């Protein structure tokens, strides 16, 4: 057994242990803290699997934003916890669940052990066609060109999610501002950090997006970084969430899928196919879509974490 194998076992055991802890923990708040830790450590496995693009996404969306979303909900639901804990299912149900989980895990393990050899791969095809777009990052190529339909529909999913969340607002908060109004001492440590960190984070976010053309990174990673910085400023009370009824806000929300759709339809008009880029202008077009997407992703992810409108827009 080599040093590398032992390392992989330790790494997997640490991450899996955290995952098991999120299930076993007694308090919900503690479980969500464990989930944040899990989400911030899973990128190590992704780096080890040589999938840096995924590592970035998992760290930003899975660990950071997703963790904070769950954390905020856990803090609000604290009062309901004793009632829910009383409903723990009986021994038979738990044994049955354990049996079912073991069977599913065993079946998946068998599938992993029986994967075909040599493994099928689409990497050579992705490389062979990379010249069509002029981008050097194969993952961005797949996302933006070869499987562009998936990415566009995923933007639509984001839009539908925000429509769904907003439609849960009560009547008097309809079209209002999401989340509570945060306050912090304007001369305190928190406000200091919230003024110092966002400039750095914004530069990093734009760098992630820009480097995504040739190196790991891209619109999702950059956008989620920008969203995190925006939420930081909101949490420090330096700014407020925008009212959901704002026209500009809604325009930004549809900018990403809108531009994507327009370029796609342009492909039809100019005699190619839906979402086909003219070979000479592929790179500028993709970059244009991505700029619109970064803005949309940042605003959408931030508002998804902020939740349903709670305060009427007038106040």
């Amino acid at each position: 057994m080599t040093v590398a194998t032992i390392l992989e076992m330790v790494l997997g055991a640490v991450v899996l242990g955290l995952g098991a802890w999120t299930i076993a923990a007694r308090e919900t708040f503690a479980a969500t803290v464990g989930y944040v830790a899990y989400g911030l450590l899973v990128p190590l496995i992704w780096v080890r699997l040589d999938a840096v693009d995924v590592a970035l996404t998992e760290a930003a969306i899975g660990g950071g934003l997703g963790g904070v979303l769950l954390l905020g909900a856990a803090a609000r639901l604290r009062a309901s916890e004793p009632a829910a804990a009383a409903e723990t299912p009986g021994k038979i149900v738990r044994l049955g669940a354990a049996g079912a989980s073991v069977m599913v895990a065993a079946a998946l393990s068998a599938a992993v052990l029986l994967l075909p050899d040599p493994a099928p791969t689409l990497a050579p095809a992705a490389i062979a066609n990379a010249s069509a777009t002029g981008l050097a990052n194969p993952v961005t190529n797949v996302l933006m060109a070869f499987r562009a339909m998936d990415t566009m529909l995923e933007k639509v999913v984001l839009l539908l999610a925000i429509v769904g969340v907003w439609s849960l607002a009560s009547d008097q908060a309809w079209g209002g501002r999401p989340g509570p109004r945060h306050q912090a001492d304007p001369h305190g440590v928190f406000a200091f950090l919230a003024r110092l960190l966002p400039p750095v984070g914004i530069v990093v976010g734009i760098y992630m997006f820009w480097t995504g053309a040739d190196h790991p990174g891209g619109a999702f990673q950059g956008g989620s970084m920008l969203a995190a910085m925006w939420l930081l400023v909101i949490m420090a009370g330096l700014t407020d969430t925008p009212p959901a009824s704002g026209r500009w806000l809604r325009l930004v929300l549809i900018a990403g899928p809108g531009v994507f759709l327009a370029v796609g339809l342009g492909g039809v008009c100019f005699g190619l196919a839906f979402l086909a880029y003219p070979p000479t202008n592929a790179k500028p077009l993709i970059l244009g879509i991505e700029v619109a997407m970064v803005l949309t992703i940042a605003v959408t992810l931030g508002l998804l974490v902020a939740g349903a409108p709670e305060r009427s827009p007038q106040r």
Partner: protein
Amino acid sequence: MTEFLTAALGFILAMLALGLVPILRGPGDADRMMAAQLIGTGGIAALLLLGAVTGVPAAADVALTVALLATFASIAFVKKGLPHLDADEASSTEDR
């Protein structure tokens, strides 16, 4: 050199895991708030070493992301962690 760095990486990972035990079990939420702090240091050291071992220089970008988002998560822990702070927020909401 790779062997040494791999061993160091394994050691730091083990330290990270051991450190997470008291933090997550902790008697109160204030202890749990340190989890993201611990990952912000130990996890990033592990990521940078892993990048050197595996030959993935872009691991530094991942470390940068983790550094910023671990800070973000820490702040969310502090903001949401203590119920009475949360209550302060709720009352100030009604004032406005």
